[in-house]
């Protein structure tokens, strides 16, 4: 079966809000009633899309579209997401809800508690245009869709139990029954070339985020879910999530499945970039590596809009380019690069290196750091442009 390419635009944690004008700090750069001088990440994104001629097959949104169940914020951002889909010429906008989108803390409810009630009144309908799918999502906490031929997406509500027991608000969850139901639905279908799980909370604890403290916010039973998904289908899984506002890239126990966590699109944060990602997925169901991907990321700030920017540490965000699915370990990669550099003049354009070693595109940020270090030990240096992209590699003469 031939390889195919699928482009996914990924954004999450918008935290749109209705500005109250009371001088309190804004949770994000996305006020629902923007003034002329207010920041405009979506407007800047339109400029980026035009400038770079970007397009995508699907737009994937990991939830927390609004901040603290701000309905006006949600309405505003939901329309913006639909406009983004149009702008990118995408076939579908696929979205889940996050903990902030549900009124699970029962704010301003006047004795009519209904955590998900407001979201069920939205137009366009949330999260799907189709009423049955939407009903299914709310009733069963998930829905399966086939937005593209050969692509199956499980859209999961990991905040479904918020508003119930007290401590549920602190983390995501998928129940055993939900896992069983998902498995049953998947087993009844033709195998897809690519399976995607879209959820808000990360499925496994993230390491290093809280220092030595364990991560309390991950999706309970997320590990079980991943095992169930990867065991009941013969195709790889791409798990997309948000919630923590920092990027995540890790393999699951299944060697061909990958978890990608998005940075926050527009939340106000210290020390982290607001980011927007384009995933170029290469699916090869019968090949040695069924799932590979390159992640291109743009970072936003008020003065410069969306640009590719170098990062100084993992918590800041994704670098401008990274990937997953490479079969070459770092030392093998270094050997190949060294051979190319030594075979020609003292430096090479990075595009030439990529032609000879295309797997570099699918290298994770951690592995790429190791590669750069090993190259440095051999006096082979990478030269980056001002946007942080590697453009040349060479050695001193």
């Amino acid at each position, binding site marked *: 079966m031939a390889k195919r390419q699928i482009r996914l635009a990924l954004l999450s944690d918008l935290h749109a809000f209705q500005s109250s004008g009371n001088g309190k700090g804004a949770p994000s750069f996305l006020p629902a009633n923007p003034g002329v001088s207010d920041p405009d990440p979506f407007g800047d994104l339109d400029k980026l899309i035009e400038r770079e001629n970007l397009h995508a097959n699907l737009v994937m949104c990991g939830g927390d579209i609004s901040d603290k169940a701000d309905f006006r914020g949600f309405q505003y951002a939901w329309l913006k997401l639909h406009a983004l889909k149009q702008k990118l010429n995408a076939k579908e906008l696929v979205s889940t809800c996050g903990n902030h989108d549900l009124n699970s803390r029962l704010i301003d409810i006047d004795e009519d508690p209904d955590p998900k009630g407001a979201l069920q009144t939205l137009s366009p309908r949330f999260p799907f245009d189709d009423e049955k799918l939407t009903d299914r999502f709310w009733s069963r906490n998930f829905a399966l869709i086939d937005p593209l031929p050969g692509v199956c997406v499980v859209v999961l509500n990991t905040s479904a139990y918020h508003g119930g027991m007290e401590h549920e608000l602190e983390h995501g969850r998928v129940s055993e029954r939900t896992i069983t139901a998902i498995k049953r639905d998947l087993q009844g279908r033709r195998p897809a070339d690519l399976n995607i799980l879209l959820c808000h909370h990360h499925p496994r604890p993230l390491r290093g985020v809280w220092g030595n403290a364990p991560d309390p916010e991950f999706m309970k039973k997320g590990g079980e879910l991943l095992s169930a998904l990867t065991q009941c289908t013969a195709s790889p899984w791409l798990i997309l999530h948000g919630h923590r506002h920092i990027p995540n890239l890790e393999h699951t126990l299944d060697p061909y499945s990958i978890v990608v966590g998005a940075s926050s699109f527009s939340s106000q944060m210290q020390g982290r970039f607001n980011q927007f990602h384009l995933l170029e997925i290469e699916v090869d169901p019968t090949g040695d590596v069924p799932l590979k991907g390159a992640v291109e990321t743009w970072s936003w700030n008020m003065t410069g809009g969306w640009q590719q920017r170098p990062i100084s540490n993992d918590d800041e965000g994704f670098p401008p380019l990274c990937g997953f699915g490479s079969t070459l370990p770092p030392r093998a990669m270094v050997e190949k690069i060294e051979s190319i550099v030594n075979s020609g*003049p*003292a430096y090479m354009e990075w595009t030439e290196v990529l032609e000879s070693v295309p797997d570099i595109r699918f290298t994770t940020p951690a592995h790429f750091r190791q590669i750069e270090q090993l190259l440095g030990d051999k006096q082979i240096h990478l*030269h980056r442009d001002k946007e942080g992209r590697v453009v040349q590699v*060479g050695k001193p*003469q």
Partner: protein
Amino acid sequence: MRNEASISPFFGAYNARHINAEEVAHQFVPSSKFWELIALRNTLLIGPRGSGKTHLLKMLQPKALAAWKGDEGETARSKVDYWSVFTPADINWKTQVENRAQGLSSEDQIQFSNAVFLSHFREAYIACLIQLTRDRPSVDFGGKSTRVELPREKEVALCVALAETWRLPLRVPSLDGLKLALVEELVRVGVPKTLTSLSPYMSRLTSMTVMDVAREVSENFVNITGLYGARWALCFDELEIAPISIQKNLFSYLRSTDQRFVFKLAISPSNDASALLNQVGNASSGNDFDAIPLWFVDQGEREIFCSRLWEKHAADTHAATLSPIVLLQRSRFQFANEEISHGRRRYQETSPWVKDFQYLERIDRSFAEFLKRRDVSTAALSTASREKMNAVVRKVAPLVGFRATYFTSPKSSVASPPVRRKLKGPPPEVFSGWDAVCTATEGNPRWFGGIASRLILKWTQSPSGRALTREQQTHELQAAARKFLAWINAIPIENAQRGTPSLSLHDFISALARYFEQEILGPVFKADPVLSFTVDEGTPESIRRLVITALNIGAIVIVDDDVVNFMTSPVGRTFRLVHLLAPVFNLPMRKGKARNLSGILSKQLGNLDSRAPTSKRPGEPVDHNQMGLFNE
């Protein structure tokens, strides 16, 4: 007074400093100044802030020329017989260098700042080479004049040779790698205690000159490429920010006979650099270099330039197909909306001009007396003799119209002076129309761009699609004037001795404006009001410095006919306020006759001696608002 450079620029969004070569080309509208600039001659570009110096120099860069679409772009490329190295200047950069040099002795500070500047110049040179070889515009119209084919082996050889000569550690032997290595070297400089603690790279630079650096790069380039005919235009922006020693070098090179290099230097109209130019080697304008002032004397030329700027700003809007005259109409005191623009029929009985004359005659006794003295009858203006028409009628007509707009009849007797109308703002009849916009912005591309963009935006947002009302236009001109005045107000003044009242730039401008306003809108009509000033010997030194500052920031312009457009001292020179300020100060946008500045200010402010600088007492610290590292 140098502090004006550290304030954010007025209409800063249009500052060419922050935009890359390709964007510069997309925004560029060439004036006659550009076609003078591109000649293979040394050039001194002289203009206040916002007059377009940076934009013009940046347009000479290979990438900008290559990105320039259209016939004019082709013409420019065919005329340019050199490759241009653009070295920017930045007051913040200068401040950073000063801070780093704090630990050094005065003598070493000079050498250190020299070395830093030269490294900066080297970086600009390599950037030029990168533009010639690989950093091309997305749509490349350039040919041989803006591009060089440099095979990789030769590029590596050039970079290795330069790095070796410079004693510069080079990790990736490419032009990009070389540029990065230069940047990293400066980052590593830190805060040295002595010159001996500098790296070999920096140490070597402390004893070099601009020409040494230029020749090194050029010779290595020629050796590798074989392009023996290569010529370079070394462009230095805001020269007054560069170290004094560098300025001296550059001025001396204006007499250089090295055929490989021409120098294109941009400076403000008045600064210490001008004194150096007079001192160093006696390079003279017209012989050794062309001095190009960036203000328009000729109204026709200014209007053509403004028309082209308007086209550029309207290009991607619904206003693109309409002329600015359709959107803004003509101005009241130019050709108005009447069919007749000149000749006797302009003063027909029913024309607005005649109505102005008759109205003012009726309400202003002093004007009536003026007409009587000159034997001019408002009932028969169109039949006045040619001599009277030229000497009196045409000369005073705009003043009459202006005054008529502001005054109404006296409440008491006819013999009393006319009364100022209670106006909500500047009168729209005066401060609107295409001609007024061109005049007010003085052909300054940054000012014009700022105002034109807002007018076009306002028009595109208007549901009716009709011409902008005069009120709307006046509102924009007034807003721009206020913004400019607020910016002037933010410029810090020099430290005055305690107890001595000091005069801010804003106060100085306001005092002048109030005087001029009284000339034109005082109780007595004046046919030849004073609307400009000459700096006389009686002007205190502190006021002279204010004049220089006002000139450099563009608040005043030179109006005398002296050929020399730059100066160290304003004494003997005549100036007026820029027309941009006219709406807030109720002034007509015209030149007017001049009076001595000391006389004007004495009348407005009293005894000027109290504002004179006091002599320095022994041991008194240097005034750091005036002196910096880059002064000797």
